[in-house]
């Protein structure tokens, strides 16, 4: 048994009110600790709210901001993932998520994929990150962090798992939409996310933690529905839609080993094949190589 209690902080951040959101984070960290959690996960932009537009530059912090250090200190003895607008030394703004461990900022992931279509306008206000790393953790397993849209690109969970993550964390501010009665849970967005996350868990034989915010920014209702999915793709816990709450979920990390021994998909991955074919595709797309047709029989 490698028991771990995960706290899903399905909160409704206040738009543009950093101090208020910070206080809420500290309060929930204390509650999670009292509840025996080892890992606490907050949603995308939990410290700032989502639909910031020009507020993004005003609410951005550096990763050495004393308020972030204070939060890390408040998370002492826990692993916590928190998200905010990060300003880099050269004044680019990123949607970032930090892993807080041992009282410090242990790792920062910058959102790689910024949706700028439909109701989204992220690329107008933010720069995309360009590094993806799994990180070791005090929990004894590697962690892989993605932010919302990052997990709408197959390569992200795949790379994280290949890089050593056994726990895939996605923190989101996903706007709920499409109320067609034919949807699995009455909400198109929720149906899509559940399908994707369960597939990632199964394909990477990893534990997947999805934390989505609730509440309203302007016209948009965020739908919550945070989940923990076992390495076989079986959902262990599904939080209610639209309800704010701190949800404690017990998992056994030894399940990951059992799944990977019985279903060695990751062992059988062919990263060198991936690299070779990707290099070819990139070269062809850039016009540096002739488009090589797939082999035609006869």
């Amino acid at each position, binding site marked *: 048994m490698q028991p771990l209690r995960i706290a899903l902080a399905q909160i409704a951040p206040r*738009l*543009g*009110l950093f101090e208020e959101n910070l206080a809420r984070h500290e309060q929930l960290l204390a509650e999670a600790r009292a509840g025996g959690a080892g890992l606490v996960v907050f949603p995308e932009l939990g410290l700032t709210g989502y*639909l*910031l*537009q*020009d*507020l993004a530059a005003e609410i951005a912090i550096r990763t050495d901001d004393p308020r972030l250090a204070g939060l890390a200190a408040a998370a002492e003895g826990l692993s916590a993932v928190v998200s905010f607008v990060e300003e880099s030394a050269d004044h680019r703004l990123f949607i970032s998520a930090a892993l807080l461990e041992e009282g410090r900022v242990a790792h920062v992931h910058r959102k790689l994929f910024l949706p700028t279509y439909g109701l989204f306008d992220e690329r107008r206000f933010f720069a995309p990150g360009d590094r993806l790393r799994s990180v070791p953790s005090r929990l004894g397993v590697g962690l892989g962090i993605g932010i919302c849209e990052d997990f709408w690109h197959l390569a992200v969970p795949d790379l994280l798992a290949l890089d050593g993550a056994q726990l895939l964390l996605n923190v989101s501010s996903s706007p*709920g939409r499409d*109320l*067609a*009665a*034919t*949807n699995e849970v*009455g*909400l198109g967005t929720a149906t899509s996310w559940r399908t994707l996350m369960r597939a990632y868990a199964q394909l990477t034989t990893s534990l997947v933690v999805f934390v989505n915010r*609730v*509440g*309203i*920014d*302007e*016209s948009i*209702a965020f739908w919550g529905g945070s989940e923990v999915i076992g390495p076989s793709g079986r959902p262990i816990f599904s939080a209610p*839609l*639209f309800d704010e709450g701190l949800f404690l979920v017990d998992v056994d990390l030894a399940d990951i080993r059992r799944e990977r021994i019985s279903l060695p998909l990751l062992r059988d991955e062919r990263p060198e094949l991936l690299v070779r074919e990707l290099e070819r595709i990139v070269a062809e797309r850039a016009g540096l190589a002739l488009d090589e047709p797939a082999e035609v029989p006869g």
Partner: protein
Amino acid sequence: MSGPPGRVPGAVPGAVPGEVPGAVPGEVPGEVPGEPALFELPDELAIDTDIARRVIGEFIRAQLDQAGFERALLGLSGGVDSALVAFLVAEAIGPERLLCLLMPYRTSAPASVADAREVVRRLGCASELIEISPIVDAFFGRDGEPGAAGPEGLAASPVRRGNFMARVRMAVLYDRSVTWGGLVVGTGNKTESLIGYTTIYGDAACAFNPIGDLYKSQVRQLAQAIGIPEAIIRKAPSADLWPGQTDEGEAGFSYPVLDRLLYWMVDRRRSPEELVALGFETALVERVERMVAGSEFKRQVPPVAKLGPRTTGIDYLYPRRRPGSARR
């Protein structure tokens, strides 16, 4: 009536397989054997009403909370749109925080006021009856006696008079928003907004609108789910500008057909050719395309001439509910 029948069992003719939501198990809303269906709900427009009520409730509470208000008010016409919004607001914040204004003109159907009163009675919310006849007549004149508009006003067209009435109601609502201390809630639906069947700065004016992304058929579906009196759901939608006027009579098409057409046009991004291939009449498609394009100005904030380095709505972009925006 033009266009294909509103309710096509199973699938839409010519639709791409897999794109049409599967049949909602053959249920006709409100159907009782031997009785006509309460209304017609095209399959692809059926929504999950529990989720809709939840999202709209959160939306209403957040709009008020973020603006620093606890109360709301709206104009209650006796029609299904404003009745539904009244029910939704009462469900979200409690009927004691809602004020409904009944604002009939002297030619308004008496049944409209009676239906509005029934909504107020069922909700137990505050209400006020304000006759707008003296205001409207003072402008256009009455019985050959000219008003503020001069002699010409006596011959004003029904459209001018209707627009004026809508804007008087808006002015009354915004005055009462001060005395009641609440925000004005919009009651326009997606169908009328898309075709421009609204008065700009009249019925379209509001602080926020909980049902502006619901087609008329979906308004009826939600109205039934939340318990609006059947008579209100069943009666023909009308701007009630003159006796016997109905939306469908005036526009020349039925809401279920129009809703389906708009759904495939707007939400499913079908081209005019594809819409015709789906079974809609060419003339209807062309007409509705024109109505939607021609009313774009009603749905947007007016453009400001770009002159300075930073211009509101163009490159000065803040959420309405930014820190400090709430009433203190």
